[in-house]
């Protein structure tokens, strides 16, 4: 697949969306959502990252091979987080000898 040319108009729209999301994440940070605080902040951050990856980084127009590499990398990151947390978050669940 050859280069796909994204127009300045699309870039500007994505930039506007990123600005709105930045204002939103700062705004909602001043409201207490209880346990949802971190979840809301991360959902907004992930949305922004996906916009950047798909449009600014042209992944929406790139080959399947590139997408598989990116998907694999993201899975590896999720493995790192999930396995580490499955250890730390469960340490208090049971009394273990020597701890």
């Amino acid at each position: 697949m050859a280069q796909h040319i994204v127009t300045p108009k699309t870039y500007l729209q994505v930039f506007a969306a990123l600005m709105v999301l930045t204002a939103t994440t700062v705004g909602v940070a001043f409201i207490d959502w209880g346990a949802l605080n971190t979840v809301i902040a991360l959902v907004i951050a992930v949305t922004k990252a996906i916009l950047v990856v798909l449009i600014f980084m042209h992944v929406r127009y790139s080959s399947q091979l590139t997408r598989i590499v990116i998907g694999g990398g993201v899975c590896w990151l999720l493995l790192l987080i999930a396995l580490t947390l499955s250890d730390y978050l469960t340490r208090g669940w049971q009394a273990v000898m020597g701890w």
Partner: protein
Amino acid sequence: MPTRHRRLTLAEHSATAHQFDDMAQQYEAGQLGMWVFLMTEIMFFGGMIIAYIVYRGAYPQSFAAGSHHLDLTLGTINTVVLIGSSLTMAMAVYAAQMGQRRTLVMYLLVTLGLGLIFLSIKAVEYASKFESQLVPGPRFHFEGDHGEHAELFFSLYFVMTGMHALHMVIGMGLMIVFAWQAWRGRFSATSNAPIEFMGLYWHFVDIVWIFLFPLLYLLGRH
């Protein structure tokens, strides 16, 4: 892989390395290679982010207290500046694809300038942390409650933002080299892959900040 039998134009021929069939294949190989590199970068920053998540889970109040000492206004301005620099980088890629040499150089220099503004604001923030003795080490001194593990928060703050800033310095070095080469006419409408691949790197640095900003600055603001 079947080879397309088409005679290359002279410009394509001189821009294609001999191990590739044509420009399209060379472009795709370069793009894939850049993404593989960025995946190793994701794991690099991922390690620091998981360390942050674990310690924040262990000492939530100390981390919230530490986060309150960061300057939210400067952090927000820097977020806007960096996302703006991603926009100008994307416009530079567009200018390269259109073969507009002067516009390309202009956008690369604007991106470089926005990067400089980001790092200057970061320097102001770092300086104020030194003044208020919030830099981890023997002189660290934290006023207020929950200070026991605030030093840990600031250690993670300096390592994460410091590594991010180092990546920006590297990106800006590349920006200077490419702006010079673009001025000399190295890139054209048919041969501009290096500009796009540097764009991928710059957008990646932007994405890292998109995660660092809420994690470090927006914690426990309510």
